[in-house]
């Protein structure tokens, strides 16, 4: 109680404050926002440079993300080919088919099961040997095996997942011969892992470069305006009052930069989608090339805002006390 009283006399008596003063962001939000916008207008060149830097930096990152996301999607599609086949050297009765299909479906890794009869197997064989059908003259369906072709859920398409699935399959009575293109699965998965590692490394490097470039650009622009910080401090502005408009300015720069980057990326994407067919051997529209998902777009815009805000905050620490 005493302490509080003492403090009050110290602050209010010798340095009486006008009654109008309101502290904190809530009381001054409008002022800070108007100040930030006026600052942008009055320092338009510096702001254009900063927003341009943020735009370019985020455009590079989001272009990388776009390529990465599409490659991942392509890889996901290729992984559909990871199939496990169970062979039988005899025809299965329909009861046996239903029973085995049920047992296989009951396994948690199973996504789709289809039965391939001897006739179906021969038909496929013939279509693969199109043009050389004569080789199959005299081949009767009975020489071919019947089989179940099983697709796996996405999470179980890696080497370990497939091997575990095969072990579970072999526990089902009546299943003895299982094949799954072991080498192909291994090679495909190591390619995928390599691609993801490369992507993560490149992505991390890019993000580091972007943070470095953007924070240094902001630092330079604040350095160019250090007189302003000094003047504000001289007329008795609190450190919060000095920093708030700069932080809002950084936030706006980041947001605007990110939105321009996303708009440019969308323009590039659309341009590529509709013109690439003429100079590439594949048609990008039919190949399922997609734009970044909404959550990625939101993430980039948020990252831009955070980048601008944190960049300003760390730069201000150098020039404003406390």
């Amino acid at each position, binding site marked *: 109680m005493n302490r509080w009283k003492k403090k009050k006399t110290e*602050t209010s008596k010798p340095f009486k*404050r006008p009654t109008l003063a309101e502290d904190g962001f809530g009381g001054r939000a409008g002022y800070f926002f108007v100040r930030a916008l006026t600052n942008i207008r009055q320092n338009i060149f510096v702001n254009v440079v900063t927003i341009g830097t943020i735009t370019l930096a985020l455009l590079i990152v989001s272009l990388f993300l776009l390529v990465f996301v599409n490659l991942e999607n392509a890889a996901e599609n290729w992984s559909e080919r990871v199939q496990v086949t169970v062979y039988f050297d005899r025809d299965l009765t329909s009861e046996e088919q239903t029973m085995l299909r049920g047992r296989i479906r009951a396994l948690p890794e199973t996504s789709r099961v289809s039965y391939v009869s001897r006739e179906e197997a021969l038909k496929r064989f013939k279509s693969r040997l199109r043009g050389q059908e004569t080789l199959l003259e005299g081949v009767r369906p009975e020489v071919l095996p019947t089989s179940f072709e099983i697709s796996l859920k996405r999470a179980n398409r890696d080497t370990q997942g497939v091997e575990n699935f095969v072990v579970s399959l072999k526990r089902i009575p009546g299943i003895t011969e299982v094949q799954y293109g072991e080498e192909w699965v291994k090679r495909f998965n190591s390619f995928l892992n390599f691609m993801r590692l490369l992507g993560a490394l490149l992505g991390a490097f890019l993000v580091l470069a972007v943070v470095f470039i953007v924070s240094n650009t902001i630092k330079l622009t604040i350095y160019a305006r250090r*007189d302003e910080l*000094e003047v504000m401090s001289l007329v008795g*502005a609190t450190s919060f009052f000095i920093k708030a408009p700069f932080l809002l300015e950084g936030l706006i720069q980041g947001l605007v930069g990110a939105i321009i980057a996303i708009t440019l990326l969308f323009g590039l994407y659309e341009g590529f989608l509709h013109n690439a067919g003429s100079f590439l051997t594949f048609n990008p529209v039919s190949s399922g090339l997609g734009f970044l998902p909404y959550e990625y777009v939101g993430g980039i815009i948020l990252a831009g805002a955070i980048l601008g805000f944190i960049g300003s905050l760390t730069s201000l620490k150098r020039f404003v006390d406390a």
Partner: protein
Amino acid sequence: MIQLHNVSLAYQRDASALRNINLKVGKGEFVFLTGPSGAGKTTLLRLLYGALTPTRGEVLIDGQNISRIAASQIPQLRRSIGVVFQDFKLLQSRTVFENVAVTLEVLGWGRGDIGKKTMHILKQMGIESKYNLITQRLSGGEQQRVALARALVNDPKILLADEPTGNLDDANKNQILNIFKEANVRGTTVVVATHDRRLIEHGHKRLITLNKGEIVEQVEKEENRDEQAF
């Protein structure tokens, strides 16, 4: 209003910028600080507005010991002190009006009051017609008057000036000196650091001479002598 007791300040261990300064400046006094370059005039002023803290001794402003003040209390201190410099320290990208209004914005004044008070002080300084100009376009004398308007707009108890006429011609020097005198008449304690003999002679005020960080001479001018109240 201002009291310094045995104040010493060393930037580095050996070189003292100020040595054992004892000084009292009464309320409503007008004091010139003079001495050669490097005598410690600027350092002394910086101590008074809390930009530096003394290595030893106490600095009291209006009864408050600011040598042990918390960093968060410094803005409060500065709201009662106006400061002007040789290089004006104006916000170059802002207008004359905005440069002066900033003092009142910091205090949280409403827009209407800021407008009235700012235009009033600009009129006193004789630069009200230039209120919408960017300060870069003004002459040196006009820029210093903007800086003075910013320092005086909230009627500070103390006005500190560091070589305020260093960049000005004689006509402008007189005008600036008159503004200091007017502020002083209205009750503001004024401390001006300068080595401009002309300014000091025309000032007819108390004169404190510093050399190598020490007060070497204090002269009371006639008209001021009776007003001394420590």
